[in-house]
């Protein structure tokens, strides 16, 4: 399958619109501009190239669909969290490609907004949104996965600069990124969570080496990143050495509840695609009429509605000025497991298609095989299921741990 040329109309969704009018304008823009070749439910689908993806995402930003709540001074659109939710509902309703810069938009950007200097905000944030700087996340290490307090990559102050030595792993998209949000240790390993600092490391710096890893879906999205005496400017240090990590954790608690807000609505788009594909096949149409499969699909509907409820409740709480705290773990845990169940159901249903395969079924098989394989990672990244359960037990239920 080859990428094809795309053309996107420019122009922002009118800034003055709000509420339902904003929703309708967003829906209309997306429906008009999403290229047919980007629709993963279409027989015309062709996996977009990096150039096409960055072009599309830059157009999305210009139209008002990235940096929605970020201040206009930094390239954002200065809209409310409720409008962010509306835009995400409309984005999720369409089968468009995942962002190639989600780390920049949903992790690095919010952290820089929270703890960056004014100069850093002006330097980093607009380039995330216009897609001239793609970011990756350098947190995990071979000996520090869920337990980030055990990480060993070191940053040592050397006059006006920092020198970084160490290795990161599972760094998705590092091969295409310009910047790495690096978590490094400035103190001894025994300090655990103290002495951790964040840096915005340019990946073209001398001493940085990226090696791709072939992963479960056959793609080489995963990377190892090696830092060999890499010189990092003080201008690229985010927050104070002992403050950066704790501030980032506070941001991440909110982000866990609000990032990829579209996923509940994308989940429903996937469900509708599965059913539509089944209806294009006589055998699968018959299966849909069976009570067993109707009930299985209904369980997915309930899962989706519960997920939407988690997201909408989180938005309500944030708008009301409440602390989200550990509640973000509820949505992450529910979504990741429900999505895995659905992906397995989709694979099972589509495997029963009549032969020869219809093109609509083949398209769905390709999409859901990818979703199935990717979904296996969803209970691992952004805090494993076991970590989320621990957070809920510790911080929401406050279960005693001691003897």
């Amino acid at each position, binding site marked *: 399958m080859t990428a*094809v040329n*795309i053309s996107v109309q420019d122009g922002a969704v009118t800034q003055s619109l709000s509420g339902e009018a904003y929703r309708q304008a967003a829906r209309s823009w997306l429906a008009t501009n999403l*290229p*047919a*070749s980007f*629709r993963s*439910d*279409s*027989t*015309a689908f*062709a996996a977009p190239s990096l150039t096409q993806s960055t072009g599309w995402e830059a157009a999305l930003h210009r139209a008002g669909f990235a940096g929605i709540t970020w201040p206009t001074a930094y390239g954002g659109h200065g809209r409310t969290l409720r409008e962010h939710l509306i835009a995400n509902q409309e984005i999720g309703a369409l089968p468009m490609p995942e962002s190639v810069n989600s780390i920049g938009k949903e992790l690095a950007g919010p952290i820089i907004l929270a703890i960056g200097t004014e100069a850093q905000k002006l330097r980093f944030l607009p380039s995330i949104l216009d897609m001239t700087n793609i970011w990756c996340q350098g947190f995990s290490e071979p000996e520090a996965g869920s337990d980030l307090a055990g990480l060993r990559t070191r940053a040592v102050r050397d006059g006006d600069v920092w020198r970084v030595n160490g290795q990161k792993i599972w760094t998705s998209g590092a091969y295409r990124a310009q910047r790495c949000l690096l978590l490094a240790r400035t103190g001894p390993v025994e300090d655990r969570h103290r002495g951790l600092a964040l840096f915005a490391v340019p990946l073209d710096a001398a001493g940085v080496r990226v090696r791709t890893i072939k992963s479960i879906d056959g793609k080489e999205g995963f990377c190892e990143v090696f830092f060999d005496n890499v010189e990092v400017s003080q201008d690229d240090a985010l927050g104070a050495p002992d403050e950066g990590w704790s501030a980032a954790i506070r941001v991440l608690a909110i982000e866990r509840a609000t990032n990829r807000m579209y996923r509940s609505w994308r989940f429903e788009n996937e469900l*509708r*695609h599965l*059913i*539509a*594909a089944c*209806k*294009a096949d006589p055998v699968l149409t018959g299966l*849909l*009429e069976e*009570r067993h*499969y*109707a*009930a*299985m*699909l*209904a*369980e997915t*509907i*309930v899962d989706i*509605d*519960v997920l*939407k*409820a*988690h997201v*909408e*409740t989180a938005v309500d709480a944030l708008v009301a000025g409440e602390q989200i705290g550990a*509640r973000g773990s*509820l949505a992450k*845990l*529910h979504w990741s497991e429900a999505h895995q169940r659905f992906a397995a159901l989709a694979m099972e249903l589509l495997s029963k298609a009549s032969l020869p395969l219809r*093109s*609509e079924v083949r*398209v*769905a098989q390709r999409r859901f095989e990818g979703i199935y394989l990717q979904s296996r990672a969803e209970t691992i990244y952004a805090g494993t299921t*076991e970590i*989320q*359960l*621990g957070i*809920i*037990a*510790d911080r*929401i*239920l406050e*279960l*005693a*741990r*001691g*003897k």
Partner: protein
Amino acid sequence: MTNRDEGLSPAEFAATAARAVAACAGLSVAEQGVRLAGDGLVGVVASENVGGLDLPLSFAVPVVAAAGAGLSDFPLMENILLARLLQQRLPRIATTIVAGSISATVAWNGAVTASRQGDRVVLKGCVARAPRAADVGLLLVRVGESAAAIVPLASVARDESSGIDLTQPEYTVQLDAVSVPAENLFAEGTWQDLQSDAFVLRAAAILGSAETCLALAREHVSTRRQFGHALSYNQSIRHTLARHKLGLEGIRQSIARALFQESGLRERRAAFLAASAYGVTISEGAVQMHGGMGFTWDIPVHRHVRRIRALQAQGDASGVLAALGHDYIADVKPAREHAAA
């Protein structure tokens, strides 16, 4: 959420409802009706012209949840819904329900036939899953597909109580050519409307029960010591209860979502189905956490299991699940081949 200009919030009703339910302990069903009515709980959504508070359904949610949490043996959900259903056509009966001087129930399973005879209607058939039908004066039955009729129970034979919920026993009722005034017959669509609201309130009742079960389990594992430390020291226990908390919040937020202005039958069914699935997991899990104590009458967790299972059956959870799936599938158009761009 506030109501009009009165500054009321549903949450404020929770404490009142919990106190009222607790005060009903040891009272007869009739006495409970009077007591709960006195606190304004039976008429919470009924109109003011029958003595109700005329509040939205969201205000009934904490009331029914409190009844679930306290294992009330009064059919509160049924009376709340019937007071509102009857307020237009049978306002005098609705007024007596709101006042607690007569109580009612609903046969959630089965339907009867109705034939018109002058200004009366003759009902025939067998209905079931009517909570506390031996202790109340009125019964609502489904007629055909979606109509409904209200029947005085004084002259109607009821079978022995049945059902897994011993606190709020269910009854099967045989209607052998029971004649009621024609005004007791409600139009087609009445049953669906009633069920739609019942999905939300049944979910609320399960929420109350499940919340109590999780609180009891949390307390037990925090204080019960085995192998030299509290049960909550064990990761398997911690993670199981974390999953129960996830389920509980799923129920709570699904109910809230079902009450959004733009929500419809899908969201209401989803709230009930989420409550049904998670409620069973949480309550049965609480029995497991309690070990042998979970089987005694000193700890109410198995009574909550019974209540949740009864509510699941009254709402026909498996049938609703299949119907939700079939309706959703019917709404999706088949995929079509697209020309390459």
